[in-house]
């Protein structure tokens, strides 16, 4: 009898401890990073690392490494372990692979730089810190109209067809007073009359090449580049792109000095990607800490203010409300000249 009581006590205490441990388990945030393109994920690693050092320990963080071929399997394994919050700096194509699994497992994904609105709409619980392409298109169209350009040519490359086609068509639709001419990079010589402005939707490398051609053939035309052209490569080729305006999603004017110190102390460089990844991890942390379910995630994000590295921001639908910034390329730096969205449209 005595032994039976002891045994029963052990069973009851053991079950209570297991239950208590399961219910009070810290929420886990999984940081998704590709290991087959480590060179291009440098900025995201810096942003995530700084955020991890800043955040308290009431939420557990784990690294989830994947390659472009095993992403779905890796994510499935992570959700089986109970991870419901993910943060990443992936391509749109990666997010479209994850969409179904996020819905099935009720998991939330916070992305730093995915801008394709179609992909985000399909992946129900995926959100982004960057303005979506439709907003960028509106911003570029507003800038062109504000400047009063009477004739516009949109030049696109073939590196990311989904992105370049969508953005060029949206800009054309948003321009109310001018009907722009959309041409492929290879057909630049087909343009006969000199347009007042060229919009370049392409990689930075292509933007440098095409700017040289435009400057030699069409004297005096203005150059405006989409967010993909925003790269330090433009500074290196200043002669070719002088006077060009490029769009970006981060303004570092109000960046805390402690933040930039953390980057420069490790001999690393501060890029917009670093800041967006930092903010993305902080958003994922808030969701996990407050145990926000996937179903409530959109309403939570849309009704709360988040404190980012360069100021406060909120969400509108699937993306953060951050302005689109327009920078002029100078011999040494990108100079902020205008912004669209945010507090005021006039800068």
């Amino acid at each position, binding site marked *: 009898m005595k032994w039976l009581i002891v045994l029963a006590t052990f069973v009851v205490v053991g079950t209570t401890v297991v239950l208590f441990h399961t219910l009070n388990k810290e929420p886990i945030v999984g*940081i998704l*990073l590709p*290991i087959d*393109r*480590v*060179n291009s994920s*440098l900025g995201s*690693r*810096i942003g*995530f*690392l700084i955020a*991890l*050092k800043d955040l308290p*320990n009431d939420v557990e*963080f*784990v*690294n989830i*490494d994947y390659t472009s071929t095993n992403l779905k399997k890796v994510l499935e394994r992570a959700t089986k372990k109970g991870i419901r919050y993910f943060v990443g700096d992936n391509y749109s194509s990666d997010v479209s692979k994850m969409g179904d699994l996020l819905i099935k497992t009720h998991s939330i994904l916070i992305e730093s730089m995915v801008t394709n609105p179609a992909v985000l709409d399909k992946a129900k619980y995926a959100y982004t810190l960057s303005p979506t392409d439709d907003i960028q298109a509106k911003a570029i169209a507003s800038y062109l109209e504000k400047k009063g350009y009477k004739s516009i040519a949109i030049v696109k490359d073939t590196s990311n067809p989904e992105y370049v086609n969508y953005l060029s068509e949206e800009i054309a639709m948003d321009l109310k007073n001018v009907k722009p001419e959309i041409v492929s990079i290879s057909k630049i010589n087909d343009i006969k009359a000199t347009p007042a402005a060229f919009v370049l939707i392409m990689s930075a490398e292509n933007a440098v090449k095409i700017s040289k051609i435009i400057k030699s053939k069409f004297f005096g035309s203005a150059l405006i580049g989409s967010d993909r052209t925003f790269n*330090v*490569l433009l*500074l*290196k080729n200043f002669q070719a792109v002088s006077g060009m305006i490029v769009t970006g999603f981060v303004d570092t*004017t*109000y960046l*805390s*000095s*402690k933040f930039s110190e953390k980057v420069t102390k*490790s*001999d*690393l*460089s501060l890029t917009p990607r670093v800041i967006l990844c930092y903010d993305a991890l902080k958003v994922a942390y808030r969701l996990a800490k407050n145990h926000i379910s996937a179903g409530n995630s959109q309403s939570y994000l849309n009704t709360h*203010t988040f*404190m980012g590295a360069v*100021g*406060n921001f909120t969400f509108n639908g699937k993306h953060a409300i951050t302005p689109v910034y327009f920078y002029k390329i100078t011999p040494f730096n990108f100079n902020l000249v205008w912004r669209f969205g945010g507090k005021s449209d006039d800068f």
Partner: protein
Amino acid sequence: MIFKKFTLTVLAVTIALSLVGMYFQYKYQVEILERKTALVSNSILEELKNDLSIISNFEIRPYSHLASTEFKGFVLMDLKGKVLHSLDIPLKMIGKYSNMYKYVVLNGMYVSPLNDSDGSPTIFLASNTSDGKYIAGMEIFLAAKHISNAFIIDSTGLGVSLSGKAQWKNMMTLLAKRKNEVFVRGSTLFILKKLDLGGYSVLFDFSIPSILISIFHNDYIFWILILLIVMIYYIHDKATFSRIKPLMDFVNFMKSIDNFKRYEPPKSNEAFFKYNSLVDKSEKMSRDYSNLIEEMSEINSELTQVNHLLIEFSMLFNEVKTNRKDLESALKIALRRMLDFSRTINGIGMRYKDISIHFGTVNDFNFDRENPAKLSMELKTDSSTVKYVISIDRFATAEKTHDMVKTLLYYITSFISMYEMLEQNRSSMRYDPLTNLLTRHEFEENANHELVRAKRENQFLSFIMLNVKDMTGFNEKYGHLNGDVLLKQIAKEITMNSRFTDLSCRYAEDKFMLCLIEMKKEDALGKVKKMISHISTFKHRVEMKYAIASFPSDGEKLDDLLIQLEKGVKEQKKD
């Protein structure tokens, strides 16, 4: 009794010995692992330093033997960032805007994070050459150490296995959240050694079960002995022990007095209660004392921060004074810094004239309605008021911190006051106080700009000089008060008859000037006649003279045009 005591003593000694043994075994095992880790990390560090010294002495030759590493490519640049020679190095890594150039200029050397070069891990090293004339860089392949449980990790948390196979692994959570060099995650013991070069570390992982098995294996004789003693003790009669229990309680109580700790007696009485309350009081005092010390050190660090902020603010506001930054941007930066000042400040905002700035949990709504949870302050400046709202954790914040925040706000307000006075002074220098038209100096400066613009855009520009004939006589006849009224009337007519883009000024005591943008001489003549006809309706008789000069027909420089105008007015006087 003697047997029991003896058994207990032997048991205690055996357990103590085995525990001490286990502890030292564990320490010894960890020490061995640490030594192994240090050996590997030192060898990697030596290799990197060796490579750096080769670079600084500029001995890079394509087929030279470099310790245990091979190199992929190299670059040589001058001190201005111009690439002189480069072999197999990606363009983005070199040149004036590369991290390599920036950090070599800053620190004399640069060690890049890990790079994936076609599946092999590489590191880019760069340094000033020893003659100080060049910057040399080299991309090296990471040498395989054939250690399966070790990783080299760069400053971004990316690791690659030292086994020789390019096995990449992100380890930023381990890097960010660990507190010591040796730490445990799950059933793995990690040892992390920093390399003191480029933020690199070497991480070893060891399975804890295997370490424990080896320790138990060494101590098994002790554990068998403990088991035997426990068995003997269990068999022995318990009654003897119960007889000595009161004595044991007394001994325990005496020991607790020695240590001045609470004593929980089997049966409570008043003496024990008084003793325990004394112990409680003493513990409370000790806690209060340590809290006080903690609070003082926090205030001390905050004071240092306030000093830093005050220096930063004065530099920031200096930029505003010298027109290198506008007031709103400076105030935004100042408030953002204040938000970083203390972790107890959750939000901060200010409203001054049209400027409304808020960060954190403070929003526009808080300025219009008082919120008891937020601290509101309204401070007067020279000609206006500034309202501040601060969301501060009142319970977690010391009173001194409140005072420090207020000091910073007073400092910002006093600057705004100074800025207002400065603006007032600037404005009075630009405008004539009687007529509110531009001063002569300001007019000439703006007119020169307009002339340059008209020349560039091939536009007309007309200047009119208006002069009151015999102003001295008018003053003597009708008094200086009436003279001032007349000048104001003329200024009013000039303002009403000029467009927003035109420039007008009081040129001398009785002379006025007008610069009409994109206007021909004929149109300017019509305008001046209209103005004079309006002025002639003044209550006292007044005669006006005028002259018109146009760009480019009458001259291309402002001085030439002014001479023409003066001459024109003088000739009209003679007539």
